[in-house]
């Protein structure tokens, strides 16, 4: 109980700081979500009829996910300096695999008869993609995006180590000050807020998926 009280005290004394770090964290998640989705869906669409290219793209995305995040962020520093960019680029790289994999899976699950009839009625390949394939693959794609966003909202904590800010700052700060007073509270603050943020985003995605899935395939 005492621990909880001291955590609440710690947080209430730093509302502005918490707010600022949360916004930075959200900035990472939001920008990576947009850029990662665009890249991964585009690649997924481009490789959907090319089995070899598909395996190569998914293979590269898988390998990227195995690079230790701290290592990746640090390696990016000589290229883009410290601050926002190393975490942004690193997180974008991590975000690709789940979205790409689900884009490919979603597109290949579209009924062949539906595509055949679309083509037979004179839809060109662009019209088929935008009017038929993407809407039908959408629920699967959005699930990939959701997994991806959850993944990066955790990894984004590492941004603090390369001067990128975000809620990881609290964890980093706590770690460096152990066993000084307030160090555990800092770690708890960062961790709990990241979890809370992830859960919040996850439920928003559920609502978003429901709202954007066409009624006929719900």
């Amino acid at each position, binding site marked *: 109980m005492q621990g909880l009280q001291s955590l609440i005290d710690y947080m209430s004394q730093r509302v502005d700081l918490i707010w600022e770090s949360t916004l930075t964290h959200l900035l990472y998640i939001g920008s990576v979500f947009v850029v990662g989705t665009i890249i991964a869906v585009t690649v997924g669409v481009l490789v959907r009829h090319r089995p070899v290219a598909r395996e190569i793209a998914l293979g590269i995305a898988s390998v990227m996910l195995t690079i230790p995040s701290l290592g990746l962020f640090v390696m990016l520093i000589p290229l883009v300096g410290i601050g926002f960019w190393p975490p942004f680029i690193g997180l974008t790289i991590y975000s690709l695999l789940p979205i790409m994999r689900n884009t490919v899976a979603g597109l290949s699950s579209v*009924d062949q008869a539906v595509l*055949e009839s679309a083509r*037979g*009625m004179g*839809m*060109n390949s662009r019209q088929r993609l935008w009017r038929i394939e993407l809407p039908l693959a959408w629920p699967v794609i959005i699930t990939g995006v959701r997994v991806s966003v959850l993944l990066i909202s955790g990894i984004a904590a590492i941004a603090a180590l390369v001067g990128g800010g975000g809620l990881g700052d609290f964890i980093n700060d706590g770690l460096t000050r152990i066993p000084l007073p307030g160090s555990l509270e800092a770690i708890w603050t960062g961790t709990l807020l990241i979890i809370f943020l992830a859960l919040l985003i996850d439920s928003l995605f559920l609502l978003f998926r429901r709202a954007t899935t066409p009624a006929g395939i719900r």
Partner: protein
Amino acid sequence: MTPTEPMIRLEAVEKIYPGSDIPAVARLDLEIMPGEILVLVGPSGCGKSTTLRLINRMIEPTSGHIFFEGEDVTNVDADQLRRKIGYVIQQIGLFPHRTIAENIATVPRLLDWDDDRIESRVDELLTMTGMEPSIFRSRYPKELSGGQAQRVGVARALAADPDVLLMDEPFGAVDPIARDRLQNEFLRLQAELKKTIVFVTHDIDEAIKMGDRIAILQEQSVIAQHDTPEAILAGPASKFVEDFLGAGATLKGLNLMRVREVEVDDMPTVVAPTSREQVLQTLDSSGSDWVLYLDEKRMPRRWLDRRSLDDVEALSGAGREVNAFVEPEDTVRDALEIMLHSTAGVACCVKPDGTYRGVIRLETLMALIADLQRQERDKQAAVAAASS
């Protein structure tokens, strides 16, 4: 275009798939006349579907030319060409994320029709295919039965009023009874619309029923015989055709004969509103065991006999329900099947609007079959006598 010019003409069309030496379709010449239903029929793997798909260039020919209303379309933009040709496939391929109205509006939208015109066209097509627009317009494909989905598939293919319709086993995925219904509806529709139709099936009975002309295909889409159903049944051109027609050409002939050509018998009827006394009087005066009860709209509802009049409040619930209906456009074979299913031995013949026309007795059909068989035997005897 002169009236005798074919709507579609294939000239030495050949399809060889990459990596294969044997053509899937070998130098095919085929003419399809305006307003006719040409059925391509043959065993599986004969290339009939490939042939159909060459016409709207879903498959590009390796060589040869395709003419559409006299114009060579072998090299025009395939998407533009397909918007002018209706296309129905067995699995239908309705777009599951779009409503029925949106599905039907597909080609008109591609052609940039304005919204009002699309809306009224959708309603017109739904009505035409027997689906109430106010009910079905905003439904989704998953809410439809197989037969309804098939109707929507046809409506969608007809949406932009194409002159030509390509149909690849369109009724292959529905149960036999629903298939008969759909075939009859389609023939009735075609009698009004007079489209040029190429229809693929593997079922010779369906081919005989649907086709104005039939092209029987053997391997590599080589035409074994191309003629009217009557002519093919009367004179198969080769052993292959004979084998494909199979035994019982007589029974196949039942596919050619329509119910409207068969004599219907009268049956004593009573029309609602009526009374027990009226029914009894009708039974007495006609000497029949049964009397047919028609509702206010003259639709046959119940078979009534003396016994069924006891202990019953309303006549509309008495006796046996009428469950065997045939329409003028049904083939005699359909009628026979319907009777066998209903075990009634007599079927009510109704007009397209469902009102009573007469009854057809099993005996009538049996006599007809016996007659056809006698003719067949005589013909074979004559052939045998001539060849000996």
